[in-house]
């Protein structure tokens, strides 16, 4: 079953790329536009992902499990959430960078509610993005957004973390 759906995906991907190549050769406009979208987003992500993964690799070899457990683990209390909101503030990119980082934090012993706070916070309070936002929308807009959303993110993460821990949730293996 799994093999079959994998093959189907590869086939769909192959059809997609053949379609894009043919569109570029024949000048089929919609296809070219889709191809352009693909290329521009790939470039955008390639500017960030290699650095992000190198940092993740360094994190995995250098940071001790005990210290992650101590600050972000089961007994970290409220401070755990504070630390990851600060860490999220420096995150670059978007959700797609936050997922692998959150996953590594979890593997090193961070508790579930803390990694969900990290994911939520890295969506909404990345500092460079917020500065950029306030230059277009005004400081009042950014401030209200942060003040309302951060507590909601933390509360919902605590709820989701507890809910999953009660049900013995396991994060995917081997990524």
């Amino acid at each position: 079953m799994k093999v079959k759906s994998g093959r189907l995906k590869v086939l769909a991907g192959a059809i997609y790329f053949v379609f894009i190549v043919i569109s570029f050769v024949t000048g089929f406009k919609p296809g070219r536009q889709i191809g352009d979208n693909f290329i521009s987003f790939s470039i955008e992500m390639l500017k960030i992902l290699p650095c992000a993964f190198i940092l993740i690799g360094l994190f995995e070899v250098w940071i001790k499990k005990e210290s992650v457990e101590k600050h972000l683990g089961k007994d970290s209390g409220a401070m755990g959430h504070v630390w990851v909101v600060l860490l999220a503030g420096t995150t670059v990119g978007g959700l797609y960078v936050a997922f692998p980082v959150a996953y590594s934090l979890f593997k090193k012993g961070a508790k579930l509610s803390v990694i969900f706070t990290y994911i939520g916070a890295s969506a909404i309070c990345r500092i460079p993005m917020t500065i950029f936002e306030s230059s277009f929308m005004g400081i009042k807009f950014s401030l209200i957004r942060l003040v309302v959303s951060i507590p909601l993110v933390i509360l919902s993460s605590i709820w989701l973390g507890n809910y999953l821990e009660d049900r013995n949730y396991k994060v995917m293996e081997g990524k």
Partner: protein
Amino acid sequence: MYYLYYVTLFALLVSIIADRKKTFTAIKISCKKFINIIPAFLTMLILISIVLFFVPDKMISDYLGNNDKFIGLILASVFGSVTLMPGFIAFPLCGLLLKKGVGYMVLSAFTTTLMMVGILTYPVEKEYFGVKVTIIRNVISFFIAIIVAISIGFFFGELL
């Protein structure tokens, strides 16, 4: 964004000086993790390229600009959820819409769902956290975005 390069370079240099072997292991881990997740990223990029073709920026600004504010709120949060845009495109677009008279509430519904709800990042998120958690997290995020938008509407005097 350049500070990411400086931080990475600095961390790598320090690591190499401290322990060459460990750094090598780290790079190996990085590559392995990156390669493992490439299929999910490709799926995501393919989805993005197709969805953005059917939902271009112009369509979003047309719809957000021409409606009652509550319909606008709903439309904005749906657009924000199903599309994906880097901040350097999204915020100038919103700045433009603001000048055209679109309300803060509608725009915040759009930007907040854009940031928090990731239907297009689903292929990547599910690889790490599974289908169920991905769905729950996105549903919660959607409602948080709505609450944020309504608060913004309230504080900017658009509701009363």
